[in-house]
C-alpha cells in the first residue's frame, strides 16, 4: 500500500458533511466507480451479481450497485472500495467488456433527509429540471445542474446522490450548500 495520503475532492483529508435543516449532505469519498461498456457482440454480463438496469434506472446489490449511463453503458459503484483497484476487480467479472476506472473522476455527495421525501423533492426543484415526483427510488439519470453535468441517483425516498466531476466538487458543493441553506431559511 502506498504511503501517500489521498485528499478528498474538496481538497481536505476528511469527507465534508453538513446539515441544513432536514437535509444532511455528506461527501462519499470511499465510493469506487468503474464504467462498463459492452463490446460488439458481447452478451450483457451480471457482474458482482448485479442485474444491469435499463435506461434511467439504478440497481443496488450487496455493497455494490449499478446505474445505466447510456446505451450499452453502465457505471458500477462499490461502497468503501475507492482505495482498491476496483476496475480490475470488475474487469474480471465482465469479460469482453470495456472497463474504465472512474473512482477519481467523480465526487459523490449523498443527500439524506430526516423528514421523508419532501425536502429531497424541494431540493431537486431548485437544482435540476427533472420531475422530482417521477424520480422515485431506483431512478438514476445524468442532467445539468448550475452549468455542470451531474448524475443523480435516488437511492431511497429520503436520499439522493449527486455525483459530479471531481474538478467541480467545490462548485457543486457550493450549489448544494446554497440551495439547501435557503430551503432551511424557508423552513423546509
Amino acid at each position, binding site marked *: 500500500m502506498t504511503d501517500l495520503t489521498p485528499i478528498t475532492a474538496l481538497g481536505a483529508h476528511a469527507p465534508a458533511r453538513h446539515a441544513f435543516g432536514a437535509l444532511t449532505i455528506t461527501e462519499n469519498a470511499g465510493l469506487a466507480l468503474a464504467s462498463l461498456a459492452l463490446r460488439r457482440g458481447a452478451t450483457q454480463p451480471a457482474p458482482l451479481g448485479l442485474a444491469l438496469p435499463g435506461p434511467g434506472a439504478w440497481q443496488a446489490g450487496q455493497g455494490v450497485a449499478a446505474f445505466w449511463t447510456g446505451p450499452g453503458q453502465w457505471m458500477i459503484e462499490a461502497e468503501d472500495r475507492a482505495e482498491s483497484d476496483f476496475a480490475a476487480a470488475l474487469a474480471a467479472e465482465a469479460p469482453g467488456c470495456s472497463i*474504465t476506472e472512474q473512482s*477519481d473522476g467523480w465526487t459523490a455527495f449523498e443527500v439524506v433527509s430526516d423528514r421523508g421525501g419532501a425536502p429531497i423533492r424541494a431540493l431537486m426543484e431548485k437544482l435540476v429540471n427533472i420531475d422530482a415526483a417521477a424520480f422515485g427510488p431506483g431512478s438514476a439519470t445524468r442532467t445539468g445542474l448550475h452549468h455542470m453535468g451531474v448524475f443523480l441517483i435516488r437511492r431511497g425516498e429520503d436520499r439522493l446522490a449527486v455525483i459530479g466531476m471531481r*474538478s467541480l466538487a467545490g462548485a457543486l458543493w457550493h450549489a448544494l450548500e446554497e440551495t439547501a441553506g435557503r430551503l432551511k431559511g424557508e423552513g423546509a
Partner: protein
Amino acid sequence: MTRLTGGLIDRARNLRFTFDGRTYAGHPGDTLASALLANGVRLMGRSFKYHRPRGVFSAGSEEPNALVELRSGARKEPNSRATVAELYDGLEAASQNHVGPLGFDLLAVNDLFSSFFAAGFYYKTFMWPRAFWEKLYEPAIRRAAGLGSLSMQPDPDAYDKGFLHCDLLVIGGGAAGLSAALTASRAGARVILADEDFRLGGRLLAESHLLDDAPATEWVAQAEAELAALPNVRILCRTTVIGAFDHGVYGAVERVADHLPEPGRQVRQTLWRITASRAVLAAGAIERHIPFRNNDRPGIMLAGAMRAYANRWAASPARRVAIFTNNDDGHRTALDLAAKGIEVAAVIDSRSDAQAQGHYRLVHGMVCDAKGRLGLRGVQIDSDGRREWLDCGALGVAGGWNPNVHLASHHRGRPVWDAALQAFVPGEGGPCGLIAAGAAKGQGSTAAALRSGAGAAVEALAQLGIEARSAELPAAEDAPAGLRPLWHVPGKGRAWVDFQNDVTVKDIKLAHQENMRPVEHLKRWTTLGMATDQGKTANVTALAVMSELTGKPIPETGTTIFRPPYSGVSLSVLGGGDTGPHFRPRRLTPTHEWARAQGAVFVEVGPWVRAQYFPRPGETHWRQTVDREVLATRAGVGICDVTTLGKVDVQGADAGEFLDRIYANAMKSLKVGMVRYGLMLREDGMAWDDGTCARLAEDHYVTTTTTAQAGPVYRQMEFARQCLWPELDVQLISTTDAWAQIAVAGPNARRLLERIVDGFDLSNEAFPFMACAGLMVCGGLRARLFRISFSGELAYEIAVPARYGQALVERLMEKGADLGATPYGTEALGVMRIEKGHAAGNELNGQTTAQMLGLGRMVSSKKDGIGAVMSRREGLAAETRVLVGLQPVDPAQPVLAGMHLFAEGAEHRTETDQGWITSACHSPHVGSSIGLGFLADGGTRMGETVIAANPLQGQKVALRVVPPHFIDPEGGRLRD
C-alpha cells in the same frame, strides 16, 4: 381622506409608508395605489414625453401612469407600478421622471410645445450640424426620456431558479382559474395554480355580486382551502407567468419577498421554469378606455378599477365621481360606489337607449373634455350637442374589456376579432396545449367564466387521458354587457390613446396622413404600445382609430403580436443565482490546495483555474518568477500540473481504425507501449486540436486533447462513433478528472522519477522518448507514465488517481530537493513551449491549417481521416503563411502577440499585411523577447528582417525571421 367601509384590508393594523418624502398610513391588503387614493393622493407620476401629470389609471399590472421608484439605496426599483406594489410597513416610494417637484415638473414645458413633438418629429430634424447630435441633441433627449433611474449599485438580494412539472398549469386564480383548478385537482391531476396577485380570486375580489347568495370571497376561500389541502396541487400566489415557450414550458416569476421590507434569509424572487403537459389561460381581461380631450387628468381611470378600489380596497379617488361608459358594466361601478357612500355625479352613457340601473343621474352623451391639471376638477359633457361642465374629482371610464390574450400569442398565433364581443380573442396557432378560458377568451360574466374554466380543465385533461368532471359551480351573475363600441370621442384637442408614451388620436391621424398605416409602422412611428404596459391599455383602441381612418374593418387593419414577458421582470431574477465568483463553475486541479499553499498566482483557463506562477519571497515582478521557473526547469527539474488536458479512454477491437479516421495522421500503426503526437482536423480541413495518443494495449488507447477543446473533441468523437461509423467496435469515456497528470521536465527528470517508481526501468533503452506504461509508484500506487515533452526537455508526464495528485507533487518536491525541483505554472509552460516552437491555442485558433503549422505532411492521404479531403482545397493549398520564429534585431525591443508583419520598407496597410504574431514571451534562454507568428512565404525567409507593427500601441519593431525552435532544434534533449 377617501377611505370607505368594508374591503379586504386589515384595519386592525396600520402600515406607515412614505411617498415623495411625506408619510402616510395604510393597512395590510393595500397596494401603494390604493393606500395613496385612500389618503387623497391622485397625482402619482409624469408621462414619458410631455411630462403630463398623471394619476392611477388601473388596478393591475397593466398600469401605464402610476409608476414610482420603490425603496431606496441599492434596492431602489424604478418603474414600479403602484397598483401592484403590496404595502408593507416602512415602504418608501418616490415619483419619477420629473425635474423639480412632482407638482411642478420643469420638463412639463414639453407639453406647451407638444405640437412640435408630433409623431415622428425627431426623424425630421436634429440633423444639422452633424456633430451636434451626439454632443447636444441626443444627450438632451436622453435626459428628458427614460423613466425612473437605477441606483447604479449591485442588487444586494438573492434570487433563485427552479423547475416545476405538472399535468395542468392554471394561469390566473379568478373565477375561471379556480373552477379549472378545482375540476382538475379533483380528478387527481397534478395542478399548479399561478396568480400574479397576492390573493386568489381575481375580479371576484373586486365585485360586489354574490355566488350562491354569499359574498364571492367566501367561495374563493373555500376553493383555496380545498386546493391548499390537496397534495397534487401547488398554489403559487404573487407569481406571474411571463411567457409561454415551446412544448409546454412556461416561465413564471414568484415574488417571494417583495411584500416584505427586506427578504431576510429568503430569496427575493424565484424564476420557475414550469413544464406543463397542458395549461389553462385564465388571465382575465383588461378594461379599455375611451379617448377624449384631456382624458389623462389624474383622477380619470378605468371604471372597473374604480370599482375594484372601492370594493376590495375601500378606497376612492374622490368623494364625487362620474362614470363614462358605452356598456352596462359602467353602471355597476356607479351602483357599487354609491353603495359605498360615494356621490355619483352622473353616468354618461354613449348609448342613446341606455337605462339607469339605480338612483343616479344618467346622461346620454359623451365626455368631451376634462379640467384640473394636477387632479380632475370636472368633465365636460356633450349630450346631443349640449355641453355642460360637471364637477367631479374622478371619472371612471368603461369602454369594454379586452381579453388577456397575451400568452396565447407568444407563439405568434394571432388573436382573432370577435365581432359579437367587439374584442380580440385567442386565435389558432397558439402555444400547443394552452386552452383559454373565462374572460381571457371573452367569457366575461362570472357564471360564464366559472363554466368556461371547468370546461377547459375537462378538455385539457381528456387530452392527457384523464377523465374529469366539472366541479359543481356556484350560481353567479350572467348578465350581458350590452356593449356598443365607442372607440374615441371625436373633437379637437389631444385625446390620449397610449398614456405613458403620450400617443394621441391626433398622432394616429398623422401617421395615417404620412402613410404609416400598417399597424407595425403605426406603432414604430408613434411609439404606440411601446411603453411599460406594452400596449395593454392602448393597442386595440389605436387599431380602432386607424380602422376608422382607413375605412377598413378592425381585423383588416391588423393586430399586434404580444411578446414575452407578460409584464416587466427584473433582470436579477432572470439572471438569478450566482453573479459573482460562482457565476460559472470553476474546475480546480488536484493540486490546487497545494499550489495555493505555495503562494501560487492563479489564472482562468477556460473553465479551469490553474497556477500561473509561484512567486518566491523577494521576487517583485512576475517576470522574475517566470524566468526562474523556466531556468530551473531547463537546468534541473520542473514540476507542473497538466491535469486539465482532456483525456479520453478509447477501447474496442476497432479502436485503432477509429483513431485513424479521427486523426489526420495514422494511429493504427502505433505500437503498444508507445505514444504519438496527434493532429485533428475539422471536416472543413482546418487544424482543430492536437494532443497525444498512447496505446496501452492492442485494444486500448488513451488520447489527450487541449484543455480548451476537451468537450468539443469528445463530442466529435462520439459523433464519429455513433453517427459516422457505428459498425466499428469502439467504446469511449472521458477520464480527464480521474487522473492527476503531472509533468516532470528537465535534465534531472529521470533521476527524480527513479526515486519514486516501484522497480521500473526508466533507462533510455527500456523507456525511450514517446514510450508509455502502466506502473506502480510510491510503494504501490497505480500510475501511468508517458515520456512526452512540451518543454523541449527530457520530460515525462506521470498520472495517478486524482486523490493522490497532491501527495505525489509533495513527494516529488521532497525527493527532488537536491535536484533543483521547482514547481512551474502556465506562464513558464507557455514560455518553454514558445521556445520549443510548439503550437498552442493562439496558433490553433481554428483559422489555420496543418500546412501553416508546419504539419502539412502529417495529413495522411493514404486514409480517409476527417478533414483530409477538404484540406486539399485550392485556397488552403495556396496559403503561404507558415509558422516561423521571430526575434528582435535589437534585443531590447518588445515582441507582442497581435503585431502584424510587413516587409521592410513596405507601407502598413491591409493589402501589404504579411502575417501576424501569434504568441510572444520573454525568453530567458534567448535573452530577449521572442515570438511565433505566421508569415507569408515564411519558410523561405529565414534570416530576413521583417517589421512587426503595433499601431494600436505605437510600436514598430524590426524582427529577424528564424526557425520556430529557439531551443534544441535537433531534439537531442528529448531523446537522451
